[in-house]
């Protein structure tokens, strides 16, 4: 590794104060620290030793937790393509096609987001914050495979700029960056993020009788037109491909159309296990979202005013982006509540709101996105009351 170190050491003077590229020091620093943990030592007074953790490792843990979803998503893009167009493709071809579709989205997301981050880093004179490494991977996972690349770029730039940098950068933002990008796409370019966009068809035509709608859309449709119970309608959809295309097992495993990374609840749960075991994601938030959603859906089952309300509660947990949102979006420590008790409240409310939006608001079939963004806005309020209770206990103690 000596030769890499030498390269950095040799070029460092050009970036230091007075050097030719002194303004680009943050850029240089970012790359240098990517290879080598800097030789900074603790100050003379205070803690003389520090924990081996740093933000890079923490963020990397989140990215590692996303890998199962990403890999599955890549394969599923190819697999869905094969099903929808009726072609015979082997596993390798499916992976290859998926890679060709997904990789450009990932690259565009990172390139556009990091460009904004670097510009701000250079302006403010600090090295790149690792936060975007996670956001840059989340964005491709929550968009349909057919998304135009220029839209990915615009949405990412918007999210980083308006969602994060105007608030002061990583750690200061109010709304989850990846969801801001998703919401931007949803409202700015609705036709590219709803309808039959969830399956990559390329220049091929789908087989007759194939519907590329998401389960949420089908469920909504069934509920509005009163054409039978949601489960029946789902069972009768895409029977041309397979009789149990929308069976619970298939939905849980993720062999269905949808956003790139969110279809497989199983892969998301593997990610959840990684996040919880490493302590990087809050188990309270994750459990809260699932519990809140399940109980609300159960309650709706009992009321049963329309077809969607009657859909079995456990279906809600495996369709749409609920699981993905609960595990990777709601747990963002910056935009979630920061107190431990607040995390329960925050998680449960996201779960409840998701189901409420899904069932009662046909205009927004995907409830989790709006539920999390809404609770992002309310997180400081929840914390405010938890902190207030803490202060209150202190005051009460004093008067005794």
């Amino acid at each position, binding site marked *: 590794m000596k030769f890499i170190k030498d390269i950095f050491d040799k070029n460092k003077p050009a970036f230091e104060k007075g050097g030719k590229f002194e303004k680009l020091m943050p850029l240089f620093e970012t790359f240098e620290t990517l290879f080598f943990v800097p030789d900074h030592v603790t100050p003379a007074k205070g803690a003389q*030793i520090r924990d*081996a953790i*740093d933000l890079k490792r923490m963020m990397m843990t989140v990215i590692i937790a996303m890998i199962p979803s990403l890999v599955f998503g890549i394969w599923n893009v190819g697999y869905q393509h094969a099903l929808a167009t009726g072609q015979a493709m082997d596993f390798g071809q499916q992976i290859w096609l998926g890679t060709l579709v997904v990789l450009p989205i990932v690259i565009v997301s990172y390139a556009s987001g990091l460009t904004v981050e670097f510009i701000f880093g250079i302006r403010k004179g600090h090295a790149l914050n690792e936060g975007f490494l996670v956001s840059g991977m989340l964005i491709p996972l929550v968009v349909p495979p057919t998304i135009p690349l220029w839209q990915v770029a615009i949405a990412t730039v918007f999210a980083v700029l308006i969602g994060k940098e105007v608030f002061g950068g990583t750690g200061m933002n109010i709304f989850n960056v990846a969801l801001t990008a998703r919401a931007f796409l949803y409202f700015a370019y609705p036709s590219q993020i709803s309808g039959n966009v969830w399956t990559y068809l390329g220049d091929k035509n789908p087989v007759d009788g194939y519907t590329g709608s998401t389960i949420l859309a089908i469920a909504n449709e069934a509920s509005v037109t009163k054409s039978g119970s949601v489960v029946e309608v789902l069972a009768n959809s895409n029977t041309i491909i397979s009789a149990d295309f929308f069976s619970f097992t298939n939905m849980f495993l993720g062999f269905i159309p949808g956003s790139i990374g969110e279809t497989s609840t199983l892969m998301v749960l593997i990610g959840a296990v990684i996040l919880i075991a490493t302590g990087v994601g809050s188990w309270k938030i994750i459990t809260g979202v699932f519990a809140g959603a399940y109980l609300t859906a159960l309650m709706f089952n009992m009321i049963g005013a329309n077809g969607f309300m009657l859909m079995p509660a456990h279906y809600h947990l495996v369709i749409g982006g609920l699981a993905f949102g609960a595990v990777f979006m709601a747990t963002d420590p910056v935009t979630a509540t920061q107190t431990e008790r607040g995390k329960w409240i925050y998680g449960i409310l996201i779960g409840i709101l998701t189901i409420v939006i899904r069932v009662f608001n046909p205009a927004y079939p995907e409830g989790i996105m709006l539920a999390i963004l809404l609770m992002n806005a309310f997180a400081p309020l929840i914390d405010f009351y938890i902190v207030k209770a*803490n202060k209150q206990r202190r005051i009460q103690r004093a008067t005794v």
Partner: protein
Amino acid sequence: MSHTLKLKKGFDINLSGKAEKKLAACDQPKTFALKPTDFVGIQRPKVMVAVGDTVKAGTPLLFCKMMEEVKYCAPVSGEIIEIKRGDKRKLLEIIILADKEIVSEPYKKFSAAEIQQAEKSELVNLMINSGVWPNIIQRPYGVVANPADTPKSIFVSTFDTSPLAADISFVLKGEEKFFQAGIDMLKKLTPGKVNIGVNADVSQDTFSRINNAEIHPVSGKHPAGNVGVQIHHIDPIAKGDLVWTVSAYGVAQIGKLFLEGKYDASKVIALAGSEVKNPQYYKTYTGACINKFVEQNVTGDEVRFVSGNVLTGEKIKSDGYLGFYHQQVTVIPEGTHSEFLGWILPTTKKLSFHRAFGLLSFMNGNKKEYVVDTNMMGEHRAFVQTGVFEKVTPMDILPTYLIKAILAEDFDEMESLGIYEMIEEDIALCEFVDVSKNNLQQLLREGLTLIKNS
């Protein structure tokens, strides 16, 4: 004896190089120093001696103009050889070349019974003039107490849970009589209780047999031994409250002043740390130059000498001086190295409270001892991760919010979030585990200074 206070939160930093419980034979260092910088509260120190003066142990050397009655005294007898000043003539060290035989200023002696009967003012007067008073620390702020105040209670913690800490029972062996006399004296200073925190995990603790005080067994990981944590659970500090704290060593020193009529700054210290060849205990005096103990006794070239423990201590040179309140010298490797991909490679060797990807030290169990150097292990970042500080702070306090209030210089928030209950040592563990590498102790002190001067 009240029931045991069991603390669940916290983290024991298990370092290698624990001091073996034996006293090493070693010559006394030639020089000793009094460092005004050890006392947080001293703002305008005034030196009372000049280079060339000869002093006895207990001769006043300086006082602070803000609290003139409290004198800071020489730990040993000898000649003043240097008064070291830094930038803007800031007083750094008063260095004494010690006599072979230490001679003490003679002060009035008391018997145990006489302490009970004597006038409080007479006793206090003796304490502030003889050099033992600075052992008494006032909370809030962690500054030397003002003799004119009356605290609502006094706290003494008799065990230290910080990394490689000296075993206080070992250090004060044979001093029980003085410790009891010190407690009797402290009892006279407060209308409330004198509370002693004892280690509930050790049976037959000598300190649990002390009279004239309330004994509180405490069990748990670090910082269970911190007096601030014990105060929080036993008699918390609210706005306007004054609580005094004294180290166990300080109590014995106060007792000795009355029973023997002298300021005895002799002290058993632990020399510990992964870089020490023979980690063990030494008997010396407050303010000792550490060179005699570390000479020929340290492995490795690049090491850091720390007066105090690795969480709250201060870096000193190999011929630097032991801090007034410190009972240990720790020697650890200096971390001036850049590690290739060190931020992601999996390792079981690096100690971490966290379990993020690749940090596998939790699999080693809590018996494993670690060598930790002074590397920051990362760069400073904005606050991102939440809920970690709370896991290592066994108090009903929200450290992140408190720190943010300090950063915002919001006085009301600092007060209501409990800044009065904390000093540096209480937030030190948060600083260690912090993902974003903030210097929290320094920040807390800035907040305390803001409030104190407001």
